[in-house]
């Protein structure tokens, strides 16, 4: 489970790369890639994730590894919400959370390998 403390890095640029991936360039200069299905499997909403343990709940909807999005929008000044074409779209992904997700991942040949 990723730490939930707020950090002050902000997204400077959000760009779609292809049908299932986008990148965020952060205010500290780092650029991380994000895969739609992977993010959906990390959905932080109360239905998908157990608040106490941080683990994905059994009742969470299965994620289509090729899931697409309809749009991504800003929420308040601190998060993104992704409207997926299927599965759960209730997650509010804070910038802190997204930064930590991006930071903790390894990408090789355009695919997330961990």
């Amino acid at each position: 489970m990723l730490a939930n403390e707020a950090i002050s890095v902000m997204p400077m640029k959000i760009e779609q790369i292809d049908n299932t991936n986008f990148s965020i360039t952060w205010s500290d200069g780092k650029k991380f890639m994000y895969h739609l299905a992977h993010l959906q499997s990390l959905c932080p909403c109360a239905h998908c994730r157990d608040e106490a343990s941080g683990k994905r709940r059994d009742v969470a909807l299965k994620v289509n590894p090729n899931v697409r999005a309809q749009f991504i929008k800003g929420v308040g000044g601190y998060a993104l919400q992704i409207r997926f074409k299927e599965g759960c779209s209730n997650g509010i992904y804070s910038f802190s959370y997204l930064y930590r997700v991006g930071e903790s991942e390894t990408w090789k040949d355009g695919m997330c390998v961990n």
Partner: protein
Amino acid sequence: MPLPIYQGQHKESYLDSVKNIILIGAGKGGVGKSTLSVELAYNLAKLDLRIGLLDADLYGPSLGRMLSLELKPKKEEGYLVPGEAFGFKLMTMAFFRESALVARAPILTGTLMQFLHKVNWGNLDLLIIDLPPGTGDIPLTLSQSLSLLGALLITTPQKVALDDVGKAAELFSTVNIPLLGLIENYSYFLESEGKKVFPFGQGGAASLAKKWKTPLLGQIAVDERISQSGDSGVPFSFKFPLSESAVEFMNVAQFIQRAISGEKEDLLKNFYMEWKEFSDASK
């Protein structure tokens, strides 16, 4: 490089004609938040800004009682019209609680969010939302759906109040609502010879402001005339414009005015990116 911005909003809302929104909060009740909200609204209106004040405390004292309203709030077909007094517009949820309109107004028994979008404010430079006391989820809900300029927190000098307002500051910080500043109410008492005494302690708000790296915008005296203004229905600053506290209120209003005009477009709050389908992609 700028982020793509979505122009306009998906659904119609009377908030579209409101340029800025600030929250007035306090950790606990009884710090004089509603009285101060009225004084701020009045002084901002004196600066020729178009001001609206929303009293969001459904169960608190009705601001409608606190102000003699030239025009009372009323209900039209599908929307609410704010009352007007002393140069600014006022809507209070508690006002409707007391009238027979409640039974026939299902929109008023809904959430604060529904209520907010139904008030026909017209063109406002600033809407002030006077929050219920405490640190419930209302600031979180508001921050997720509204573009907020920031929050002002009211405290008194006592340690207990400071602890509570510290929690409120923490909550606002978690959802990235900027803390515009603190105001210390009941800060001191002015004796007849002009000497200041501090019946509730001294320096607490200043150190909290320092801890949260936010300005201490004003320190309001213990002045029975301020409390009495709530009963008389006329703002204290209107009756005693040259008093020390009225000058303090005007200072705070001018600070807010500068915050409004200095605000640049916050691209992130209105960020919207349509997801495209690339026909030649294999992924």
